[in-house]
């Protein structure tokens, strides 16, 4: 088997005395779409931030295409990040920049591409997420939440990454817009041949975009398998989550 694009080995993360990740093991192959399910407070976002190198794990190792993320610094880390895209839950668009400047941020600020060329490429990428050039000069505050997600998706794919992280991509969107975002994610991830790691608690989204699904509960992966057997997982935790029942081994986060 080839080197996985992402591998987490016994990753632990604590904040003071609170242990959020208690030894996460996960592998993502090139071109695979993995969805990590988990309830509120299960450690999904912390796992993602560790995988991205935004947080340093307390213990364990994270490998990106065979390179240790936790030990990478400076140029090595920059090179890794150039191969990774990220769609944040809130979109995380820069308020002070226009839509096209957000999409072309890496080209303008890191790759030092000429503004004219970066703008052209940004508008071309906006078209891939079904946004016209008329939104290019608007500011993020002037467009809807669904459009912001698309702009954020365009920003995450513009540099043709090998791995894209999606942090709850459909949260806060109506079902129709959410489905459109799922379609775009599938289309772009497949089109690029990239691997995708999405964290969500939206089952409709998980069913649509996942090749494989993992379930994170109390800081550990308690189930991992193909998306098409999620309804027959044999795990009462997964069953409860998939069917959205308040009763079962998982206690509601209230």
């Amino acid at each position, binding site marked *: 088997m080839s080197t996985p694009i992402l591998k987490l080995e016994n990753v632990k993360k604590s904040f003071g005395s609170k242990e959020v990740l208690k030894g996460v093991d996960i592998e993502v192959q090139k071109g695979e779409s993995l969805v990590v399910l988990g309830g509120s407070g299960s450690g999904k976002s912390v796992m993602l931030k560790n995988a991205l190198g935004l947080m340093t794990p307390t213990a364990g190792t994270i490998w990106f295409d065979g390179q240790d993320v936790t030990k990478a610094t400076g140029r090595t880390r920059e090179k890794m990040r150039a191969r990774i895209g990220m769609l944040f839950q809130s979109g995380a*668009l820069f308020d002070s920049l226009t839509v096209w400047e957000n999409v072309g941020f890496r080209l303008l*600020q890191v790759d030092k591409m000429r503004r004219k060329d970066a703008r052209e490429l940004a508008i071309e990428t906006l078209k891939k997420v079904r946004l016209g050039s008329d939104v290019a000069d608007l500011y993020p505050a002037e467009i809807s939440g669904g459009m912001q997600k698309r702009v954020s998706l365009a920003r995450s794919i513009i540099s043709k990454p090998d791995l894209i992280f999606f942090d709850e991509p459909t949260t806060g969107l109506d079902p129709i817009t959410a489905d459109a975002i799922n379609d775009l994610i599938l289309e772009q991830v497949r089109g690029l041949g990239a691997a995708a790691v999405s964290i969500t608690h939206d089952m409709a989204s998980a069913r649509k975009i996942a090749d494989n699904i993992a379930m994170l509960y109390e800081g550990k992966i308690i189930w991992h398998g193909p998306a098409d057997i999620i309804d027959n997982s044999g795990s009462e935790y997964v069953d409860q989550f998939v069917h959205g029942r308040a009763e079962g081994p998982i206690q509601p986060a209230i």
Partner: protein
Amino acid sequence: MSNVSTRKRGIPNPLQWIGAAVLGFFAEIGRLTVFSARVKFAAFTPRWYAGQIWRQIINIGFYSLPVVGLSAVFIGAALALNIYEGGSRYGAEQFVPNIVVLGITRELGVTITGLMLAGRVSAGISAEIGAMRVTEQIDALETLSASPYRYLYAPRFLAAIVSLPLLVLVADTIGVMGGWLVSVYGLDFDSTTYLRNTLDFMTTEDVLVGVIKAVVFGAVIAIMGCYQGDRSEAGATGVGRAATLSMVGAAVLVLATNYLLSTLFVEIGL
């Protein structure tokens, strides 16, 4: 048993409380020192984002001109009135222009500019960066291979240490003119004599003292704003708290640094 646990939870051991406060204080100083060193390293080594630096010079320098100018004119005017009132008790009214220019250039021009910018700029920077922190924009910057130290903090730091001295020169000029206005139109001073006395008495060292202080104040104001913004906690309360802490912290540090620098300048005869 319940009484014991209530006592344990409700009334903290004073020694524990003092210990925790002292440790917390030193931990905060340590974090601020490391943050400050990282900002300075980013500011004085490539890569620089020229567009961001220019934008911050406009924000910090140009847009602070009205508040600095208005504050300076009133301070200069009030200073002239007070010196005239005090001086007249000893028949020393003629020293108004001399003391106004000395007070403004060495002390009041730079201090008032520092305090005004602690409010306008430091709080503004921390609110902006705090909002970026809680909406994951700073995480997004890092994932796009742009260091927040180079893209956000260093431009603000450089803009502040460049803008503050220029603003102080403006404050000095307007402050002296505030004193001149009151003296000529309210206290019957001769305009030409007042201005000649001002220029004859003022030395390059007086102006230099204010300008050197301004560079230090600029660094303090920018670093406090960036630091508190970077550490901002989620929600409107978190961002609001960061803005308050940065403003209060910057104002206190401006006054403390002012005293230390004044002492140093007196010692070295500047």
